[in-house]
C-alpha cells in the first residue's frame, strides 16, 4: 500500500501541474508547476517527506533512462538538422562549457568569500 500511496501523491501533483499549465497562459510546463507544487506541499507540511520518499527517489534514479526515447527522436529530426548541424554543434558544445564554468565559478567564489572555513570544507571546497 505504501508504494501505491506514494505513487498516487506523485501522479496527483503531476496532474495538478498539468491543470495549471492549461489554465495559466505562460510557457511554463506542467513539470515545473509540479516541482513548485511538490515543494510547497512539503514546505507547508501538507505531505511529509516519508509520504513520497521511496517512490520519488526511485523515479529520480531511473531519470536518465526516461530521456532515451526523446533523444532517439533526434533521428527523426535529422532531415531538418542536416544543413545546420555543424554551426549548431559548435555553438552548443562551447556555450555549454562556458555556462558551466562561469555559473559554477561565480557561485564557488561567493561561497568561499562568505562562509567560514568549516563550512567550506564540508561543501567540498578547499582553498
Amino acid at each position, binding site marked *: 500500500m505504501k508504494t501505491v500511496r506514494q505513487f498516487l501523491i506523485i501522479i496527483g501533483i503531476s496532474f495538478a501541474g498539468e491543470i495549471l499549465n492549461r489554465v495559466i497562459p505562460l510557457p511554463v510546463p506542467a*513539470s515545473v508547476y509540479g516541482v513548485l507544487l511538490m*515543494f510547497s506541499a512539503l514546505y507547508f507540511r501538507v505531505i511529509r517527506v516519508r509520504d513520497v520518499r521511496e517512490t520519488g527517489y526511485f523515479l529520480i534514479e531511473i531519470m536518465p533512462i526516461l530521456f532515451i526515447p526523446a533523444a532517439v*527522436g533526434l533521428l527523426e529530426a535529422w532531415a*531538418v538538422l542536416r544543413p545546420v548541424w555543424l554551426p549548431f554543434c559548435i555553438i*552548443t558544445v562551447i556555450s555549454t562549457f562556458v555556462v558551466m564554468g562561469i555559473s559554477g565559478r561565480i*557561485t564557488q567564489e561567493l561561497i568561499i568569500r*562568505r562562509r567560514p572555513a568549516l563550512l567550506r570544507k564540508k561543501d567540498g571546497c578547499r582553498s
Partner: protein
Amino acid sequence: MNDLFSHSAFFGVLISLFTYGVGHVLKRRIRFALFNPLLIAVVATIAFLAIWRIDYETYLSGASVLNWLLTPATVCLAIPLYEKLELLKRNRTAILAGIVSGVVTSVLCVFVMALLARLTHAQYVTLLPKSITTAIGIGVSEELGGYITLTVSVIITTGIIGNIFAQTACKIFRIRSRIAKGVAIGTAAHAIGTAKAMEMGKTEGAISSLSLVVAGLLTVGAASVASHFI
C-alpha cells in the same frame, strides 16, 4: 521487421533498458567520459532501429511509457530540494548569482557565436533556449519564431553534452564546491544534466534541480530581450 515489433508492447522499453545497461557496464570498465550510459543507449538504440529498419513510431509506441514518467520524475526533484533547504537558504545569494550569470552567459554566448556564424534571426532564436528544459524551451522558441524541432534537438544535445562532460568541466574550471557544481550543471544542462548531478550526490542534485527551474524561468525573459539583437 516492423510487423514483428509493432505489435510488441515491451520492445521499446526493453531495447532502451538493455542498451542503457550495456552502457553502464562499459562505463565501469572504461573510465572515459564518452562512455556515458545515456549516450551509449541513444546511439545503440538508433543503430538498432536503423539496422533492422524499424520506424521511430514503432519504437516509440512501446517506449512512450518512459516519456510519460518524465513529468512525475521531474516533480520528484522537489524532494531532495526540500531536504537540502537549509543549505539552500544559507547560500541563496551565491546560488542565485550563479544562476543569473549562467543565464546571461548562455544568451550572450549564443548571440556572439550566431553573429560569427552569420545565422539568420530564426536560427538565432532557435538556439536561445538551448540550456533550459525542453517544455519551456519549446514555448520560448515558438514565441520568438524559431524552428521547434531544431530547438528540441539542440536542447537534448545540450543536456547530453552536459551529462557526459559535467565532471570534466568541473575539473577544468576547478569547481570543487558541491553547491557550485549543482548550479553549473542545472543552469547549463537542465534535467538531463541534473540526472548526472543526482548521481554525483544529493547536494549536487538538489541544487541542480533548483537551478534548472530558476534558469528556465529566467530564460523566458532573457531570451525575449535578446531576440531583438539579431
